[in-house]
């Protein structure tokens, strides 16, 4: 038996799809031609796509093999900071596959869609309870999409009040989507630095908040894993100058049932259902980024909105101040449905417990590893903690090397080099679904790596060796992009 969960075994090479197949082979069960063939207008007709012809087994093997090259939550701990890679319950997938949902057309008459509308309506209510913000839209398809929607609301709000504003305050710890979403709405980001404790100081906000500033985008807990304890002062400052407070709720997993976002002065907040609410991330999406607002801003929410008329749910477009539509239909309903199942399974008690355990896990890791990895802010953290490679740097070892070596121990690396304000950041978010055993093994691995960094740094510099491929030439990839075959 071994301490190292990372080991090796047989994997399969698999060519690209178009390196396989034979013309005329097929993998699809073509329905009968039970009507006459009609010629296609010659001037419009095209040759059709040049795809290889594959058999059913060709496709099955291709993707089975490909899948086996991936790390995933179900194969091991995935402590990717800011991403909340918690366990994705299988029962939620079961619910999403029910034929009544899976096959529902989005433009069915409302009366044929009561089951789906009820889910959306109730999920909105639950998320309103959890965030404290009473009105919301499930339409945004991901976190950044939620941010954009929120910024559009912010833009529309100021426009309506007759004074469009041009700036927005964004902390230096913010996720890249924040400034980018703000820019899309014509706002110029004004960066504000976090203080020595890794949070914002109210006085710094006061110093730059003015009447041309639309508001502030704030992540709380922030991406260093700290609660913005000046938040009430900050929101007051912003509000006093007529600004709005946008909350990036990506880190909601730390404070469910603990903080009411409305009470602390947040006006607009997006959630990431694919983080806090346990929906799977699918190797990059689909996610879901509901946008929650105060009553005052409710009229600006995207349409249609699900409303209840007596016992019936209907989709209403009748919100003249609405920013409009942000998705062709109602967002990623299949993801919302999974989050709905999650909330119904957890209830209030377990959601709060989840936050407590997420914070417990992070603080435990922080305590256990802080002698081995430099902790830029040595104070209690929330759901994630940020280390750096400072202790390892003298041995020529970087955060990247540590991350790559960790793979060989059977763990997915933490988020690295983010937030940008921490040099060589190693951002660990264990989530509550990792057990103490698993966390302890992670700690053992990290300590071993810290030791290796001193004693045999080459092990780290050359890692990973046991993965399907070794380090890849990313510079070459960007210099001469080859984006299709």
């Amino acid at each position: 038996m071994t301490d190292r969960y990372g080991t090796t075994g047989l994997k399969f090479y698999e060519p690209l799809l178009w390196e396989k197949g034979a013309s005329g082979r097929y993998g699809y069960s073509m329905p009968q031609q039970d009507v006459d063939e009609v010629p296609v207008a010659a001037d419009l007709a095209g040759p059709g796509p040049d795809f290889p012809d594959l058999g059913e087994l060709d496709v099955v093997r291709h993707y089975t093999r490909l899948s086996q090259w991936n790390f995933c939550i179900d194969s091991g701990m995935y402590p990717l900071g800011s991403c909340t890679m918690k366990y994705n319950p299988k029962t939620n997938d079961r619910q999403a596959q029910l034929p009544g949902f899976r096959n529902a057309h989005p433009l069915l008459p409302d009366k044929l869609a009561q089951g789906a509308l009820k889910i959306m309506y109730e999920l909105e209510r639950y998320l309103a309870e959890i965030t404290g913000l009473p009105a919301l839209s499930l339409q945004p398809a991901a976190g950044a999409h939620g941010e954009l929607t929120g910024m559009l609301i912010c833009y529309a709000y100021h426009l309506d009040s007759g004074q469009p504003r041009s700036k927005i305050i964004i902390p230096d710890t913010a996720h890249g989507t924040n400034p980018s979403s703000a820019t899309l709405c014509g706002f110029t980001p004004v960066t504000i630095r976090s203080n020595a404790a890794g949070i914002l100081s109210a006085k710094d906000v006061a110093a730059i908040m003015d009447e041309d500033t639309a508001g502030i985008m704030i992540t709380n807990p922030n991406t260093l894993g700290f609660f913005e304890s000046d938040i009430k002062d900050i929101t007051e400052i912003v509000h006093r100058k007529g600004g709005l407070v946008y909350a990036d709720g990506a880190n909601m997993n730390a404070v469910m049932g603990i903080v009411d976002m409305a009470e602390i002065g947040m006006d607009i907040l997006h959630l990431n259902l694919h983080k806090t609410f346990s929906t799977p991330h699918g190797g990059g999406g689909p996610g879901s980024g509901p946008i929650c607002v105060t009553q005052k801003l409710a009229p600006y929410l995207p349409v249609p909105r699900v409303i209840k008329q007596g016992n019936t749910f209907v989709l209403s477009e009748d919100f003249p101040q609405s920013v409009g539509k942000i998705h062709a239909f109602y967002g990623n309903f299949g993801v919302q449905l999974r989050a709905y199942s999650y909330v119904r399974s957890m209830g209030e008690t377990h959601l709060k417990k989840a936050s407590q355990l997420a914070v417990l896990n992070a603080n435990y890791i922080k305590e256990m590893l802080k002698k081995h990895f430099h902790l830029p802010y040595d104070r209690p953290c929330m759901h994630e903690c940020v280390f750096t490679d400072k202790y390892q740097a003298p041995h020529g070892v970087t955060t990247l090397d540590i991350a790559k070596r960790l793979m060989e121990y059977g763990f997915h690396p933490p988020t690295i080099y983010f937030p940008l304000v921490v040099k060589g950041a190693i951002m660990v978010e264990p989530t509550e679904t990792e057990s103490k055993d698993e966390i302890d093994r992670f700690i053992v691995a990290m300590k071993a790596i810290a030791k290796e960094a001193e004693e045999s740094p080459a092990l780290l510099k050359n890692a990973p060796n046991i993965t399907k491929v070794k380090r890849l030439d990313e510079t070459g990839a960007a210099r001469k992009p080859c984006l299709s075959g």
Partner: protein
Amino acid sequence: MRYLPHTESEIQQMLAIIGQAHLEDLFSTIPAHCRRKKKPNLPSPLSEWELDDHMNRLAAQMPQPAETKTFIGAGSYHHHIPAIIFHLLSRSEFVTSYTPYQPEISQGTLQAIYEYQTYVTRLLGMDVANASMYDGASSLAEALLMAMRITRRKKVAISSAVNPLYRKVVDTYLAPTGCDIIEMPYTSTGCTDSACLRQTTELAAVAVQSPNFFGCIEDLSAISTTAHQDEKTLMVTCFSEPLAYGIYKNPGSQGVDIACGEGQSLGIPQSFGGPGLGMFATRSAYVRNMPGRLVGKTTDLDGRRGFVLTLATREQHIRRERATSNICSNQGLCATAAAMYMATLGGTGFKKLAKLNYDKTEYLKRELRRIGCALPFQATTFNEFVVAYPNGFDRKYETLIEKNIVPGLPLDPFFPDLAGHYLLCVTETSAKADLDRLVKEVQS
């Protein structure tokens, strides 16, 4: 709760290490005045079995696929999805992984997306495709933003035959940019009238949809030519039914600069409108202006082929406020599904299936004409078309719904001048008998 693995004694051990006595103490950095007093009011937790029952009941309130025939497309299409796709797509390795930031242990996702990008370029006849956008509507909006960035112009022309839901999304996205949106009318044949372009200058983009919202195939070459009379103007085409390119000329061969749209019809369940798949492709020249993630081919230290996320300097996490888009998470798993679907069909199958959709649609058109329904638009269609049902059909519409037939989408909410008109969709999932039944019901 079975998702929360900590036993009481483990919690105590961990708290001891941290130096705290209670879980609550972990939140000491949250000022007391920031802690909520009122608990969220949520229903009490359901067991796995209660949840199953509850969801079964809700799902039973939706049309059951075996019983109901829904003849609506309009951006969401009912196609058969091979069982293998569900099987492969539900593999944990695809489902429970994150964006492939660490390529050494994400080659499965990366190769799958690289293949997806390749299939999209081949289908659309474009040079490069990204790893996906949120949906067809936001893809179109991003295409116009991209055109505005490239041209540094603030005016676009968009066809009124573009899906009205997409146009609304475009309006929303473009609102803060101050961009002028010129609407191109549609002609009596059901296609875009691009004549107005001649009087318009300084356009960043001209945008049409093909097949358009009415199901009609646009003459993309002609519109491109007109659009490109100003050589800076970008020609943008969107679509919601890419299967059409199995039999019709692709955008790339018709002078299109950006082709984008919705890929739900490629093996993705309708799922009440989402998750779907925003497809996005353009010419090589514009690759560094593209929104969204890109997977590129490269080699590892041993010279073996491998794949990485690339050209990230366009993206928000590097470029922040100067990024080409704010998109981060996309619709990766849906892109993978679409690749699986296209792989299963193969080139031969893709063409054949497209043809079958077309043939069935032509059959229904013929039959409806036979019983006296007017089909206002004469342009060639793919698997959707507009029909004017006989007068007084509104009441019959309700009756048919009782009979588990949804005979198309009423167009008046979108086009008041098309009151009494319906948009119908026919795919390979409708047998001739289903079509005959619809015709009989309409006639009776």
